[in-house]
C-alpha cells in the first residue's frame, strides 16, 4: 500500500502526473484503503455516514492513548472513487497529533490536481469526508 505521506508530498506526487496517471494513482489508493477492524465492522451503527458523497461511505474517528488521530472508513468496492478519497485522507491524516489534524487544510482536496481528471463536482465528496473528520475530532478532543 502507499506509505504514509505528508500532504505536501502527496500534492507534488499528483502534480507531476498526467490525468490518466492521476486516476491510476487514485485507484491504487482506493485499493489500499484499510479494512475496518472487527470492533467497527461488527458495529456499523458507530459509523457516521458522509452525506456529501455520492456513494455510501461511513467513517469513525478515534484519538488513541498517545493523542494521535486514528481514522476508520467503510465504503463498498463499487465506489472506488470514494474509497480513493478516503484512502488519500487516511494517508495524510491518520497518525497526526490531534492539534495538527484539526488544523489540516480544508482546501487540500482541491490542491491535488484532480479537477480535470475527476471533476470539481466529485471532489466536493472528499471535502465532505474531511469536514466530518474534523468535526468528529473537535467533538472528541473537547470531551
Amino acid at each position, binding site marked *: 500500500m502507499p506509505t504514509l505521506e505528508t500532504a505536501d508530498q502527496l500534492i507534488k506526487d499528483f502534480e507531476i502526473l498526467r490525468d490518466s496517471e492521476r*486516476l*491510476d494513482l*487514485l*485507484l491504487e489508493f*482506493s485499493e489500499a484503503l484499510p479494512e475496518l477492524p472487527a470492533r467497527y465492522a461488527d458495529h456499523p451503527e458507530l459509523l457516521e*455516514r458522509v*452525506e*456529501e*458523497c*455520492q*456513494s*455510501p461511505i461511513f467513517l469513525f474517528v478515534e484519538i488513541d492513548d498517545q493523542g494521535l488521530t486514528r481514522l476508520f472508513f467503510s465504503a463498498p*468496492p*463499487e*465506489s*472506488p*472513487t*470514494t474509497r*480513493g478519497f478516503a484512502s488519500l485522507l487516511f494517508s495524510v491524516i491518520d497518525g497526526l497529533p490531534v492539534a495538527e489534524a484539526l488544523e489540516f487544510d480544508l482546501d487540500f482536496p482541491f490542491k491535488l490536481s484532480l479537477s*480535470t*481528471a*475527476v*471533476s470539481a*463536482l*466529485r471532489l*466536493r*465528496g472528499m471535502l*465532505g469526508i474531511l469536514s466530518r473528520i474534523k468535526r468528529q475530532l473537535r467533538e472528541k478532543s473537547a470531551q
Partner: protein
Amino acid sequence: MPIDIDPSPKFAEYADPSVLVSSEWLANNLGRDGLVVLESDEDVLLYQTGHIPTARKIDWHTDLNDVSTRDYIDGAGFAKVMSRLGINRDDTVVLYGDKSNWWAAYALWVFKLFGHQDVRLLDGGRDKWTSEARELTKDIPEVSASNYPVIERDDSALRAFRDDVFAHFGKPMIDVRSPEEYAGDRLSAPGYADEGASRAGHIPTAASVPWSKACNEDQSFKNRSGLEQIYLEGAGLKGHSDVIAYCRIGERSSHTWFVLKYLLGIEKVRNYDGSWSEWGSLVKAPIALGVEPGPVPQLA
C-alpha cells in the same frame, strides 16, 4: 452494416424495440464489427476496476461537458471524443453504467443531441450484468482512432432550457427526483451533495414521478404495461403529450426521458438539464412546496 436488434419479446412491446439490449444479447454479440460498448458511470474509477470485455469508457463530466460554459461540448468537441474512442458515425453504440444506468442514459441523450443514429442501452446496466456473474475484465481495449464527422449539436427537439420551462406552464412536466426533494424538505437526493440550489421545492404544476418507478428490482426497465400504468394512467401523460422532465442536474431525468421517448413513444419529450440546480437558484422563478403539484403560476 447496421446490427440487428435484440429480438426479446419484452423489447418488442416498446414503442421503439431497437433501443435496448439484454445482457444475454450483449454477451453473445461482443466483438462484432460495428458494435461499440461504452461504459458511462457516476464513479470515475469504476471502469478501471473491471468492465464488460471490449468496453471503452466515456465520462459524462470530463468528456461530455464543456470545460468553461455550463453546456455540452460542441460538434468539433464531440467529433474529437468519438474519434479518440474509435467510434464511427454508423456504429451501433451500446451504453451501460452504474447507478441503474443514470449516466448511461445521460450519455445516450447527449449522443442524440448530436444525432448519432444507433445508440442503445444495456437493460439493467452494470448492476444486472455483474449480478448475473458475467465476465468483467481490466483489459483496456486497443482502439484505433476513427474519423467521426463534425456534426453540430441540435438542442431544439430534445433539450429544454429555462425559458422553455416558463413557456411550458399548462403542459405536463415530470419531476423525477425523490419525494423529499420534490416537497422541498431537502435540496438533494439522500446521500448526495447539494449542488448549489438556493431554494428547495419543485417547479409548479410538475408531477412527482421518481425515476426509480420505471425500474424493476434488478434495475431493468419495467415492461410496457407497467410503464403505461405509471406514466399514462398515473401521471396522465398521453401519446401526443409535449412533456419536459427534470431532476437536479439532468442525469436522472435522462433516464425518464429515455423511458418516455423510446419505450412509451410519447411525441415530444425534452430533458431540462438545467434542472433544479438552475431553477432553484433562478431569481423570480416560481416554486411550489409540499406534495401537491400546485397551480399554474401567474407570471409577471
